[in-house]
């Protein structure tokens, strides 16, 4: 048997069910490796002792009917976990210990999963490189001083470095798919309304979705099956018949129609991304898919739309951090003075920038020109996809316009940082499911991903296409453990 930490989730479950390994052995292996990997800075809060205890409890009274029997899992620190500190990567929540559990994580524990720890992320999930976290940069295990992507950067780093068998992230504009692409892993953003937002620290409520991140497509299908559920506690949770994603997973995609949107050939896109995309099209054909050219005419308006809608919603959501009910409080002479100092000291630069943009576009006299305009353009972007889906079953694009960049390379230029999300943002605006799978490397040997976008609630087709292509691509991460002593 391979080293425990390099096994897939599927293999771990199989070994535990066949009693070849115990939950406690698995937990120990991931904890040992995590202890040796502090240089990656993937964890914000460790839950190791408790994890060992719970794994022993599982082994004493195992239930092999569960979908994640005794599997240790670290999660993004944006999910509220009962009695375990939840920071959202922010100083303002540095000491926040929730007294309730997010629905998505509760679903994982209900199926036998055990919390390993909370993973670093950009502050309030605002960022594409994990550089906005109050708890510092995260290293990409692919190479030293390379960003792991963001905002789910601790998640992608921990996953690629084998510190957790699978993980969950959240994706508002690409925060699952872009870090997956940067670390050679798989990341799936489900349809808006599939996974409950209850207990997830809110960023932009009309865009936020939780989703699985894993080493391969099958593992994502297993985890999606666990976390996707209708939840009364989330007013935009949707009650639809969910598939048994893992047992319905198939490589038979013969005759499936895959669209190639010409507008995703953006100016200045590196040649290697274009080559990767062409290779992806060939792989899809080899799998039996039919390739059809399509047009999504409003693609270039997606990012400007996103940078109105997301900050507007963020400015409203983050109004709750006032130093009264929880979180950091700075002292002030009056109530207003206390609010202003608390928020000034508690939030980082990027978060303040977005609150300011959001407050501006919602302020009197500017609402129609910016926010209403953006909502109208969002409608046009969604209609583009609706029309495309009259002709095709799914859409294939690159995941990101480049591979992972160096820490510090883009942190002084917000607009160039925002351009990272050019291929992922339209999917959030239209509420669609999208997956990023590793598909090759660039000249530096850094991973590059391809994105498959599906129809609303058709995660199964997205997973099936990804599963088929994954076999043809046969990508292998080459990680040298350079960060260990």
């Amino acid at each position, binding site marked *: 048997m391979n080293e425990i930490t390099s096994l897939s989730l599927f293999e771990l479950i199989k070994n535990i069910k066949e009693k070849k390994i115990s939950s406690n052995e698995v937990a120990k292996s991931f904890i040992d490796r995590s202890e040796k990997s502090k240089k990656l800075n993937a964890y914000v809060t460790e839950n190791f002792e408790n994890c060992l205890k719970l794994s022993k409890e599982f082994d004493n009274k195992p239930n092999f009917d569960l979908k994640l029997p005794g599997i240790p899992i670290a999660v993004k620190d944006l999910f509220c976990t009962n009695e375990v500190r939840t920071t959202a990567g922010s100083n303002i929540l540095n*000491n926040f*210990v929730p*007294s309730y559990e997010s629905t998505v994580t509760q679903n994982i524990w209900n199926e036998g999963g055990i919390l390993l720890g909370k993973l670093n992320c950009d502050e309030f999930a605002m960022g594409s490189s994990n550089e906005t976290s109050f708890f510092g940069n995260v290293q990409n295990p692919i190479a030293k001083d390379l960003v792991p992507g963001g905002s789910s950067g601790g998640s992608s780093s921990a996953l690629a470095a084998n510190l957790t068998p699978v993980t969950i992230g959240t994706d508002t504009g690409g925060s699952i798919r872009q870090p997956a692409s940067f670390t050679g892993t798989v990341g799936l953003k489900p349809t808006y*309304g599939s996974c409950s937002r209850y207990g997830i620290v809110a960023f932009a409520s*009309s865009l936020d979705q939780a989703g699985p991140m894993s080493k391969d497509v099958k593992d994502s299908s297993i985890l999606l099956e666990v976390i996707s559920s209708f939840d*009364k506690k989330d*007013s*935009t949770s*949707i009650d639809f018949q969910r598939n048994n994603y893992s047992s319905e997973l198939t490589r038979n995609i013969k005759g499936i129609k895959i669209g190639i949107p010409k507008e995703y050939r953006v100016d200045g896109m590196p040649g290697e991304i274009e080559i990767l995309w062409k290779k992806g099209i060939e792989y899809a054909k080899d799998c039996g898919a039919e390739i059809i050219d399509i047009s999504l005419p*409003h693609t*270039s*308006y997606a990012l*400007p*739309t996103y*940078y*109105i809608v997301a900050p507007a919603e963020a400015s409203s959501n983050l*109004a709750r951090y006032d130093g*009264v*009910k*929880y*979180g*950091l*409080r700075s002292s*002030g*002479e*009056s*109530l*207003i*003075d*206390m*609010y*202003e*100092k608390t*928020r*000034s000291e508690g*939030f980082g630069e990027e978060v*303040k*920038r977005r*609150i*300011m*943009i959001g*407050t*501006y576009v919602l*302020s009197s006299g500017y609402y129609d020109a*910016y926010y*209403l*305009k*953006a*909502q*109208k*353009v*969002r*409608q*046009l972007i*969604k209609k583009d996809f609706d029309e495309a889906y009259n002709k095709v079953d799914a859409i294939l694009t690159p995941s990101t316009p480049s591979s992972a960049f160096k820490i510090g390379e883009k942190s002084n230029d*917000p*607009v160039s940082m*925002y351009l990272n999300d050019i291929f992922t943002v339209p999917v959030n*605006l239209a*509420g669609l499911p999208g997956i990023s799978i590793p598909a090759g490397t660039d000249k530096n040997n850094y991973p590059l991903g391809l994105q498959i976008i599906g129809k609303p609630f058709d995660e199964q087709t997205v997973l099936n296409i990804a599963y088929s292509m994954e076999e043809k691509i046969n990508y292998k991460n080459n990680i040298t453990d350079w960060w260990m002593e």
Partner: protein
Amino acid sequence: MTIDLKTVKHISKLARISLEVKKAEKLADDMNSIFEFIEKLNELKTDNVEPLTSIAETTLRFREDKITSDNIREKILKNSPEKNDDFFVVPKVVE
């Protein structure tokens, strides 16, 4: 359109974030470059387009107005930076 220092200060008041002058200047620069990028939306005519307010095509659900949690006062007060037995404590508001 340019966002000047006065506007940045006004917005920071609305957002309840105190700003030093230096930081306000940097923010004005950043906001201007972001809004330059956002202005692209003006290329599109959208007079007859319905705004998309929610992607989930459902109307909000009604529920019975009944209490579902037990007495959780302590739990709620637990994370407060300053509290007394039953209340959140804030700087004096009324003279």
